[in-house]
Structure formats: C-alpha cells, structure tokens
C-alpha cells in the first residue's frame, strides 16, 4: 500500500473516535496545507542568488565558478546534480555537490576549503554553498537520478554508505535505518521515506536541497544529514566528511531513476 493512503486510513480511524463526522482527516488537512504551499517556494530566492554567485568573480583570486567541473566537464551545470556524488579524477575522491563546490571554490577562487567546512551553516561562505546548491540542483529539476557506479571507488562508497546507514550507536541506539528502513512509517505526522530502496519521484534524496519552512532556511543535503545525525543523538559529522558522502551515494543509487524535484519545500 502507498504510505499516503495508509496514513489516511490510520488517521481516519484515529480522528473518527469522538470527532465530528464532517471534519476532514488530519492527513487530508496536511495534504491540503502542502498543496497550498506548492506555488511560491522561497527556494526560488536562493536559486537566483546561487546563479548570481556562480557567475560573480569572487574570492582571493577574483574568479567565477564558471570553469568548475561538476562531473560533466568544466562549466556544465545542467544535469550534473542528478549524477552526484561521483568519482573525480583530479581530487582522486568520490565527492558530493557540496564537497565538489569546496574544491572549486579553493582551486578556482582561492578560498580555504577547510575553513569553509568548519564554518557554521548559513554563515559566511556556507550561505554561499547553500545558494549554489539550490541553483545547481534546480538546473537538474525533473531529471532522473543517474549516479555513476562504474568506478571501483563509487562502488566502494555505496558499500560504505550502506554500512553507515545501518550503523547503530549513541544513547538511543538509532541508525539511519531506525526511521528510514521501512515504508509507510511516520515520526509524529512526518512521513518517513524508505531510503533503502527507491522511495519514488521527488521523495527523499530526490527532494534535497530544500527550503525548510520551520527555520526559513535553505538546506543542502549536507545540512539535512547533519540534522539527521543530531536527532540520531550522534556526535557531529564533519561537513563533507566521507560518511556523509558515502550516505549520499547509498541513498542516491538506491533512488536511481527517481525524478528530482530539488530544491523542494519541506516542513
């Protein structure tokens, strides 16, 4: 059964106990709320900003990012997002969008990548990264996830990501799989996609970066994973650390073929 219809059923049962009969179910109400927000996603503001930042000469070297290679050749942005994370020969690493942007900002613009990685989210050049991620992902909107798995390191990162996904730890014994290992589950009223397989178009990996209405911020996948680990009660994952990139490969490959709606709008 589709998770959504399942929730409708569950909630209809829950609400029908003593609630006025004419009242819509909570799930219908939430679905209606989400529909009302569809038109006018503030992520658009960040897309515009990101495009501008890509084309503006910045940093110690006063250069633009227009020669940045996101995997499809220098300067090619369209379609790049749905093929990341991937292997990059120049750095000899598997990189996700954010870690790749760090490389470009360092090599092309002369920024200190390690310094940016240490900066708090939404501050300084981290805000730049979030806006760039919004625009770059938007340039692949509607395309299907197609992460390459030809290189041995890409395959190895999938395997490492899978192990990280199921790794239990912390005071509450949570792993990523505790919430995202089964279809049709919720935390409170939030639907939880099953990220061990393709959860469908525009769900899970295919929805980030996203504008978070709760904080009014643009969140990259790196930030999403960071908050997952916070709520998992884990210690702090380094920005663009291998565990975050490996998880990206695992989730992205699992969702292969799903259409990207990033940057999406999220609670």
């Amino acid at each position, binding site marked *: 059964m589709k998770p959504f219809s399942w929730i409708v059923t569950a909630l209809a049962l829950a609400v029908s106990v003593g609630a006025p009969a004419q009242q819509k179910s909570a799930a219908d109400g939430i679905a209606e709320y989400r529909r009302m927000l569809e038109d006018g996603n503030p992520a658009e503001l960040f897309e515009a900003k990101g495009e501008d930042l890509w084309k503006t000469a910045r940093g110690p070297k006063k250069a633009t990012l227009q020669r940045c290679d996101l995997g499809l050749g220098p300067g090619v942005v369209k379609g790049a997002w749905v093929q990341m994370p991937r292997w990059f020969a120049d750095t000899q690493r598997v990189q996700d969008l954010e870690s790749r942007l760090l490389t470009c900002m360092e090599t092309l613009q002369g920024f200190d990548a390690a310094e940016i990685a240490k900066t708090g989210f939404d501050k300084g050049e981290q805000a730049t990264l979030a806006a760039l991620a919004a625009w770059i992902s938007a340039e692949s909107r509607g395309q299907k996830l197609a992460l390459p798995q030809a290189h*041995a390191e890409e395959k190895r990162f999938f395997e*490492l990501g899978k192990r990280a996904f199921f790794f239990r730890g912390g005071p509450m014994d949570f792993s990523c799989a505790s919430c995202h290992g089964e279809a049709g589950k919720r935390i409170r009223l939030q639907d939880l996609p099953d990220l061990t397989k393709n959860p469908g178009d525009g769900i899970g990996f295919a929805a980030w970066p996203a504008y978070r209405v709760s904080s009014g911020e643009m969140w990259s996948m790196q930030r999403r994973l960071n908050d997952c680990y*916070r709520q998992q009660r884990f*210690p702090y994952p380094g920005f663009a650390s291998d565990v975050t990139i490996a998880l990206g490969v695992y989730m992205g490959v699992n969702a292969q073929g799903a259409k990207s709606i990033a940057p999406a709008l999220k609670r």
Partner: protein
Amino acid sequence: MQRKHTLFALAALAAVATTGLVTGCASRPTPADLDAQALAMIKASFRDQGIAKVDRLNQDLGQAACSADKPPSDDVALRVEAEALASIRWPAGGQYIGDWREGEKLAQNGRGMTWTDSSAAPSANGAQCYNCHQIGKQEISFGTIGPSLYNYGKMRGVKDVADPDSAPIVQYTWGKLWNSKAYAACSNMPRFGHARLLDEQQLRHLMALLLDPKSPVNQ
C-alpha cells in the same frame, strides 16, 4: 593555497591507500574489509560537539549485532536479549506507578541528548513516546514506527495496577521501558533506563500513563 590543495589531495590518497585500494590495484575488497573500512570511515568523520562526544560511536554487543540490513543470528540475538534482561533494575521498594499526567508530559516531550542540548541529565530529557507511538487518542500528531499504545493497560486487562494478577504485565512494561532489547534484540526503542535517558521516577510516570485505569490511554 596550492600547497594546501596538494596536502588535501595527498591526504585523500593516503586514505585510499590505507584501505588497500591504490588506484590501479583491481582487487575487490571483501565484505569483512568493507566492514572495517566503514568503521574507520565513521570514526574519522565525526567530532565531539557539546554533550555529544565521539564515544557515542563505540558500539556495545547489541548495537553492533543490529547494524546490518539483516537481523543477527538466533544465538547472537539470544545473547543480546539475555544481557539486556540481566541489566534491568527493578524499581526501589516495588513502586512501579507514578502520575499519568506527568507521564503524558514526558511522552509529548521529544527533547534531549542532542548536541544542542546543554545537559545529558534525565531531568533534561523527554520520553519521545509520541514520535513513534499513538498513545492518548486526543493527540493526533503521533508516529507509527512503534505500535499504537492506546488502551495499552485496558487491552491487557489491567483493572488495578496493585492487583497481583496485573504483576506480569506491570513488570514486563517496566522491563520494556528500562531495556527494550530484553524482549527483542534489535528493537527500535531506546533503552530508557539502561542508557540513563530517564530516571526511575520518570519511568513510573510513563508506567502510569500506560497502565493506570484512570489514564486517558485506558479510557
């Protein structure tokens, strides 16, 4: 800048080299190799932040046994459950039941133990119950990772928590809250007592929420 970048690349190469995968070497890592590499990667990727220290990555038997896409073998699962059962501390003076009103507040509270929380003391923690369970029927914002606990005590025939007939379910419930792994090795539920997430008094309040016939859960 150039130097820094070179260092960066060298570090990356070194990381690859230590995992036995120097470019050009075609040998496939075995599953055991990958397990070791994943562990090393995880340890290298996290740092301390506030109360959330990297020692949270040190797994105990049960956490390690339940960290794959398949459940552990039966004998490992039994060992995990036996250890968990032995770890349960039964409440002082046989006092199992507190105030369901306090229990409801704890059940609603999803806070605690993250790197943005300032204290790891039980008094700073919620019990997070509604994140995963339906409990009182008036709260429509509940999760479904765990089973519904609505009518938990009533369905199990608890009419009086002090009645000796109720003792088995009362004790089971305490044990489940203290260390859920005693009854299912890979349970998704946190070990509230064992991991010192909640203290005895807080657990008593949750017991009351679930078992007290006067609790809204059992209406």
